């Protein structure tokens, strides 16, 4: 049978987890990309490692500790962003490297943690997803979907033009924090499948591929989620036949989709631009020459 992998319970669990993550990672990622914060998922991944390690050290559940620490890290990143300090990027770098190095240090200090476990969190190990993991992943993924789809108009407005969104009276600070927490939850949910180092790729690449085909935010979201689910499912199935880590396989597939879409879309976009140009004779009118004085007022 070509679908014999479905007979195995571990593969069923892996595929459920993979499909959920294929949906939620691009659904959160699209807002980060829109706001040109594509790298934020990466940062949260680094910080989440410290949470995993803390879980080992305190003999607590590593996933829940990762959720907690990643949430704190994401809120800190959002506060640094919102206050727009000149050295905000340095502060973010400190947070990223501190999380990663602290995580590695703590794992080595703990009795339970081994390098093999560290690798499974860094790069994903989907076939070890347990029944309890599937329940936790489902609940958290449901929360992420509720936020990213239910609040999509509000989050779109905030990521598109934050100042305008504030003047509409939206609770912008609350929405920003909600998005940060949602991103943190997504990272920790996805770490079992693609790993903390590659989770950001699954948030960004499907969106980057989709937006080459679309003109609308809504269709970008739909296509990005479709690409996300396709690569997580096909990547997971391929690990059944090939002994390769799930995270790396999924991300390589995503990059492959991105390259194919780019190859198809680039000539299409060029043709569309030429046609649009031809249809808009009114746009050829000259703009006003810029003769506005730059200096101070004449007195």
């Amino acid at each position, binding site marked *: 049978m070509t679908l014999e992998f479905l007979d195995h319970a571990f593969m069923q669990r892996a595929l459920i987890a993979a499909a959920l993550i294929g949906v939620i990672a691009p659904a959160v990622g699209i807002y980060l990309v829109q706001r*040109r914060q594509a790298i934020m998922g990466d940062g949260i991944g680094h910080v989440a490692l410290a949470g995993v390690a803390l879980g080992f050290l305190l003999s607590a559940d590593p996933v829940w500790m990762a959720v907690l620490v990643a949430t704190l890290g994401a809120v800190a990143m959002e506060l640094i962003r919102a206050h727009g300090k000149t050295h905000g990027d340095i502060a973010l770098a400190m947070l990223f490297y501190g999380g990663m190095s602290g995580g590695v240090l703590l794992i080595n200090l703990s009795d339970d943690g081994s390098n093999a476990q560290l690798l499974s969190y860094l790069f994903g190990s989907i076939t070890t997803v347990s029944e309890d993991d599937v329940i936790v992943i489902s609940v958290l993924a449901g929360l992420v979907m509720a936020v990213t789809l239910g609040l999509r*108009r509000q989050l779109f407005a905030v990521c598109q033009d934050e100042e305008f969104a504030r003047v509409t009276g939206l609770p912008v600070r609350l929405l920003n924090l909600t998005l940060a927490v949602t991103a943190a939850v997504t990272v920790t949910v996805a770490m079992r499948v693609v790993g903390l180092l590659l989770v950001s790729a699954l948030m960004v690449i499907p969106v980057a591929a989709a937006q080459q085909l*679309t003109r609308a935010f809504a269709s970008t979201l739909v296509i990005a989620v479709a690409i996300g689910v396709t690569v997580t499912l096909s990547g997971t199935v391929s690990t059944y036949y090939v002994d390769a880590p799930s995270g790396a396989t999924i991300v390589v597939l995503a990059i492959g989709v991105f390259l194919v879409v780019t190859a198809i879309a680039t000539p299409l976009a060029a043709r569309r631009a030429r046609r649009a140009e031809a249809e808009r004779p009114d746009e050829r009118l000259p703009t006003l020459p810029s003769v506005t004085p730059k200096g101070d007022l004449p007195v």
Partner: protein
Amino acid sequence: MTAPAGRSKQRPEPRTTTPDSGAAHPPAVVSLRGATASLGGRPVLRGVDLTVHRGEVVALLGGNGSGKSTTIRAVVGQVPLTTGELELFGTPSRRFRQWRRIGYVPQRTTAASGVPATVREVVSTGRLSRTGLRPLGRADRAAVTWALELVGMANRADDSVNALSGGQHQRVLIARALASDPELLIMDEPMAGVDLASQQVLADTLRQRVAAGTTVLLVLHELGALESLIDRAVVLRDGLVVHEGAPPAATGPHALPGHDHVHPHATTEPGRTGFLDTWAGQP
């Protein structure tokens, strides 16, 4: 799109005194008193008084760094006041929640958004001041279409905003502000980088909204195509109001595009105020 029939805008009677001294004025929709504000530790507003009455079209003029944009951003709550008072529609700004009454057009940034979005999607965000967290209803969608038609962009509704020219993009931002059918329109340099065709569309749109009773407060670098609409010009310099009155009539070189109407006017200018004397006396 043709200009809708509206009232032909009459030049208002010259206001010879400060705006809030006349008892005949309609109520103030914006009232800023003694406003000071700093950006990055540098004082930008140093005691600005600004009152906009219902139905008025007020232009803030001034050179770069004069504080005109900061004044507008303070009015919409985006720059905190260090001292002074701000009232919107008679409510102290702290307690003001009726954002649907205000349509805001921030200064246009040229940076394209990371993810594509259609003209309709962007204009729809203007309804959020009315919908909040509830989904868009039929009336909301109709209002978005109405706003798109006002600025002549209905035929581009499904195009990506990234594919628009500067002037078209500005029309979209104004449609976004109009989508909530606001009573007060606040605009920061709406004509900057806008081609002549779009300038004409924007002027017609504004004329139509003003005829319908909308109050307008806008920052301009030059009066240009909007000249005939402006009731009152407020000139800022170094964070202070230095002149306030009816805008000068455009004649000769003044009427040329790009001419900055911010010089001292002849002392016989009917719209001059006490501010002018102080101003003219400055080095």
